[in-house]
């Protein structure tokens, strides 16, 4: 059976990696090359690399940096940030990305998902959805690195993207991001139940138990984390060992 994937997320801002809390208070955490090499050493299941200011800067993806990093990356790599055209996707795939994540463009140009899926296959299109919980318990989706509300709940957005040909969802809880307090399990479950494509849970992981929770109750196919790996002594490998003991199928 397919194994639960445990993947680190790298957020790139301007010149290097950063980590934030609730998509704010960005802290520089070091060299991207170093992080890629360390995770490569650790043979993680997959790596997610997002350029978080590409869209707000009005820039295309940074192909050169991705090229350099991908050269050191012998595991599956999902790259996102500023992807707006089919040509962007072609170039990213060429320089080493296996999948491309689309966030703002997925909302502003839904037809783009179809174009990319037709050209390169659904399996390389990841729709990246960032969401916040409203006081009434419902959820709102956001684009532009969490700054612009879409006016659609994440489950509906995911469904539409799936219909357009997206192959996977990267679902991030903005509220939980960087807090190490646990994933938003309910958000994850809502989206997982709305689609039949894999969903990667992201935002809030602080302990291995959090991962088990979102996999069990949220029904995610994979768990992404960043702060947990940057700031504590926990590792993807130890996470998988914990998950295996908890009865999940993992690659060890």
């Amino acid at each position, binding site marked *: 059976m397919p194994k639960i994937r445990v993947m680190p997320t790298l957020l790139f801002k301007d010149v290097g990696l950063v980590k934030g809390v609730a998509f704010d208070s960005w802290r*520089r955490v070091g060299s991207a090359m170093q992080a890629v090499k360390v995770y490569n050493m650790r043979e993680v299941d997959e790596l997610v690399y997002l350029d978080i200011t590409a869209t707000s800067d009005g820039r295309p993806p940074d192909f050169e*940096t991705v090229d350099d990093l991908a050269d050191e990356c012998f595991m599956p790599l999902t790259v996102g940030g500023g992807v707006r055209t089919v040509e962007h996707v072609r170039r990213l795939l060429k320089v080493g990305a296996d999948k491309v994540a689309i966030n703002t463009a997925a909302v502003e140009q839904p037809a783009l998902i179809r174009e990319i899926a037709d050209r390169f296959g659904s399996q390389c299109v990841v729709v990246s959805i960032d969401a916040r919980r409203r006081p009434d318990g419902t959820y709102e989706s956001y684009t532009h690195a969490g700054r612009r509300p879409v006016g659609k709940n994440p489950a509906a957005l995911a469904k539409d993207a799936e219909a357009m040909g997206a192959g996977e969802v990267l679902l991030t809880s903005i509220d939980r991001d960087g807090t190490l307090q646990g994933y938003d399990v309910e958000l994850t479950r809502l989206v997982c139940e709305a689609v039949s494509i894999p969903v990667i849970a992201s935002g809030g992981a602080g302990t291995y138990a959090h991962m088990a929770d979102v996999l069990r109750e949220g029904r995610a196919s994979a768990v992404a984390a960043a702060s947990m790996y940057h700031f504590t002594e926990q590792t993807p490998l130890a996470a998988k060992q914990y998950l295996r003991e908890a009865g999940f199928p993992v690659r060890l």
Partner: protein
Amino acid sequence: MRSIKYCARCVMPETKPDLFIDGDGVCSACRNYERRGAVDWDRRRQELQTILERYRSKSGENYDCVVPVSGGKDSHFQTIRLLELGMNPLAVTATTDHLSAIGRRNIENLKKQGVDYIEVTTNPLVRRKINRLALAQVGDISWPEHVTIFTIPVRIAVQLGIPLIVWGENPQNEYGGPAGAAADNVLTRRWLEEFGGLLGLRVSDLVGREGLEPRHLIQYTYPSDEALRRVGVTGLFLGYYVPWDGYSNALYAQAHGFETYPQPVEGALVNYENLDNAQTGIHDYFKFLKYGFGRATDLACLHVRRGRLVRADAVKLVRMHDGKFPWVYLGTPIEEIVRSIDMTLDDFIRVCDRFTNKKLFECDARGNLVKDRDGNLTKINYDNP
């Protein structure tokens, strides 16, 4: 191409991890230093006395504390100050990778201040493998040294039942960092991971590489939480309790026999620090390649903050000395240093290029780094416009 932003007060670039530049263009390290003026140092001194008193060995049959030392100016200051405060410290050294002659002489001088002293040297054959692995994987040849600087004194503290470890400087106070860390002066495992600069590489990552097994990595292994709790090991930063200044420490140390280098150390601006490890030149150089600042910048900032150097002069000195390819360090040629870790100079240069953050340096039309005759890079900008 965007430009690098620098602190308006010192000359630190924003690319340094954990550094913030605020709305006025002033960096968090400068702001931290500013706050020093508001510190009640008398009160801090009393707090220090209280802590020391609490941990002093009542029976006198054990040491009052462990003081991790290297033989450098800060080690001298820490040790002498503890002796002056009536403590009986056990000085503990984790031997550096490539100990220099002057480094050895300074260690001998430190012992002469009047302390029992333990030096732990890790297996050199294992060490050079780790140096090479760390250089290739995380671009830090000194990674093993940074690990053992923490693990060895803590292991000794556990093994000898000495709860208090007196470190020198809290890197977060002077060099900036999230307020959370600056407010916490006790060394916990979590602190180590979050701010100890372990670069994400862990001892466990080494197992299975180049024949390394757990039995080779004993000294690199931090004691368990259980062992730490049993002994009650805690650590404090002297730099939190006294107005820490590397230069004053150097003066104090020199007056007690500490030896300085005949000229400013390569890539730095001074002759009184980082004298003990020939590999430090490489370590500093990689900081420059990754983040755009080297040892000269660090030192210039320290002196600017204390009013010993004006910013304009600091900018000039940094331009002259920062980030030069480390052909020689403490008089040791680079070929000798890389050969001692089983690398060729070409291998080394390839690793340098791999870790260089191209966004910070001038590149040609084909995207290759521009290097001068001596292999030096040029930053895209050395100051704010």
